[in-house]
């Protein structure tokens, strides 16, 4: 059975070109870039090139790029450093819909005595800018807001939020793990201080991340030890993955247009056809300010895990914001923050496409999914034929 992969916000296929540039650096060119010999030195040169490739994708300079082990590490390092560099300020502003990498850290910060404000969102997942503005105080050390939401794809007005923070002397960090490679980002035109990137979300390998750190920003390293990354992140460099990520960033720049045209069209076809064919379905999140690859659709009166397992029988990979899939008992914190009703939240499915998806795959999903929903609804005590006749809520 063919795998139809529509879960690219979870992870992506490593691009063939990326694998190829990585391979020599496992077995043949395994030298340590810190070594004095030319065997290691040639790897160091390759790392410089990768750093330039990453910097180019986000309009940064190479010395502003710090390689880390993952997006979560970048988020932790950024927020911790901002707090350590301003010991007098003990307030953090974030949103209610952040990725666990930021959300979990903020919970920990509360235990450590920091004050954390989680700014809310409206029913479309848009940031409450009034509340945001009010939450910025002279006590605030750092703001951390995601660029684009991993579950809904909704894009926050991070540039505007960053300007508001900077004008008050507050450091600004953005978890841009879902945005980098999908939408244009230019740090030269931005006032943000820090930005997190993850390799495996843009067809690079797992286990590699980036922290962008604006030149001149005071930084306290998260990992302490050797002098790697100019003393900002100790630990021997993950050379194959750094080189792979460089290539992935180069490819992402090349694919940016396709991502925002062809991929977006495929996403829209999938979304619009499903909404038309499946009664009582709706899109979660702002459909205008949204990543081109993401569609989060709720199918009322069915439970997401059942949908996923039945789609799995057809080789279709997606994910759900339902309680049962997460191991917790509450549906996704993102959908709850948006006030999505329980009947809808439990039946939410996220499709996230990539440039590797084809129109045939979209047609296949459009063909297979409606009968699955009918079957599960026929088992649901909340579903009656009468409701089935209702028009789509859009």
């Amino acid at each position, binding site marked *: 059975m063919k795998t139809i992969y529509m879960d690219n916000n979870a992870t992506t296929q490593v691009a063939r070109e990326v694998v190829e540039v990585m391979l020599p650096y496992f077995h043949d060119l395994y030298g340590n870039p810190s070594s004095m010999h030319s065997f290691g030195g040639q790897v160091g040169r390759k790392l410089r090139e990768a750093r330039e490739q990453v910097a180019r994708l986000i309009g940064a300079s190479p010395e502003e790029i710090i390689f880390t082990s993952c997006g979560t590490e970048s988020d932790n390092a950024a927020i911790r450093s901002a707090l350590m560099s301003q010991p007098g300020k003990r307030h953090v502003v974030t949103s209610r819909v952040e990725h666990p990498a930021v959300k979990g850290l903020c919970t920990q910060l509360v235990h450590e005595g920091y004050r954390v404000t989680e700014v809310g969102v409206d029913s479309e997942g848009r940031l409450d800018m009034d509340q945001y503005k009010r939450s910025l105080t002279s006590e605030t050390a750092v703001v951390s807001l995601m660029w684009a939401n991993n579950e809904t794809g909704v894009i926050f007005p991070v540039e505007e939020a960053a300007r508001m923070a900077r004008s008050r002397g507050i450091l600004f960090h953005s978890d841009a793990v879902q945005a980098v490679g999908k939408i244009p980002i230019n740090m030269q035109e931005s006032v943000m201080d820090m930005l997190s990137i993850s390799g495996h979300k843009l067809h690079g390998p797992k286990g590699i991340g980036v922290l962008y750190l604006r030149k001149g920003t005071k930084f306290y390293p998260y990992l302490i030890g050797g002098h790697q990354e100019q003393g900002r992140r100790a630990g021997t460099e993950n050379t194959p993955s750094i080189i792979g990520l460089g290539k992935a960033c180069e490819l992402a720049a090349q694919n940016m247009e396709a991502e925002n045209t062809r991929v977006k069209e495929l996403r829209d076809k999938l979304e619009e056809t499903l909404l038309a064919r499946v009664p009582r379905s709706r899109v979660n999140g702002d459909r205008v300010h949204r990543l081109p690859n993401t569609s989060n659709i709720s199918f009322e*009166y*069915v*439970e*997401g*895990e*059942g949908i996923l*397992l*039945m789609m799995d*029988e057809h080789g279709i990979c997606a994910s759900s914001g*339902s*309680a*049962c*899939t997460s*191991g*917790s*008992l*509450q*549906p996704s914190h993102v959908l709850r923050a948006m006030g999505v009703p*329980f*009947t809808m939240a*439990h039946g939410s499915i996220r499709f996230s496409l990539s440039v590797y998806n084809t129109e045939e795959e979209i047609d296949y999903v459009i063909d297979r999914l409606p009968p699955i929903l009918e079957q599960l609804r*026929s*088992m*649901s*005590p*909340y579903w009656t034929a009468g409701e089935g006749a209702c028009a789509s809520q859009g």
Partner: protein
Amino acid sequence: MWEYTDKTKEHFLHPRNVGDMEDADAVAEVGSIACGDALKLYLKLDENQRIVDARFKTFGCASAIASSSALTEMVKGMTLEDAEKVTDKQIADFLGGLPKEKMHCSVMGREALLKAISNYRGAPEPAVEGNVVCECFGVTDVEVERAIRENNLATVEDITNYTKAGGGCGSCVDTLQEILQQVRSEMTAAPPPRPKMTNLQKIKKIEETLEREIRPALRQDGGDIELVDVVGNRVLVATRGACATCQASAQTLENFVEKKLRELVWPELVVEEVSS
């Protein structure tokens, strides 16, 4: 991804007994859409109160649907008395086990079954027992305590997996911890001290137990037993008939005679064979 057994998957993909039942004798609904799990159960009974058919409709994850399917298959053919004794664990075992995070799905099946039976008997809707400890999922302290005892739960996480309590806002976790400690300490504590027994009472009770519980079984195999003396907690006996020559009599004394006497007379008794 959850590690579901093949049987769970099979019951999810091809659930048995799905649907409504127009002429059901017993019906019950449990759960709610807010919880993410809900089950409507229908039972059809014959004149002897034996379940001849069962149907269900479930909103919930794969294991909730598989558990409902399993439950309906299990209870068909059972009398109401037998059906009442079905446990959460039996439902999970029928499916080859469930991931522990999903045990509350099988709990929902049993709840529906008990509620349907009590509805059928016309028993008044049982008043909610105990006090609600988990506001998010409406779980009471009595339900939590029962789950701890029946399933030998050791952590708050286990309680959440079995009852959902504590899985929402988490504000009741401290209360759950207190209940857990209380119940666990009750479960492991020694049974309450029995009233003192005089030697005479002890001998009399041993004699009665031998006569009523033990001799009939031994006599079936052509053997017998005689009480020689009781010294403190030492019960001195002599075997007779087939028992006297039987290779296995030592085991019989320990595994059967001593066990019975400890259970029915005094927990510290030791049976010793003497030749008389």
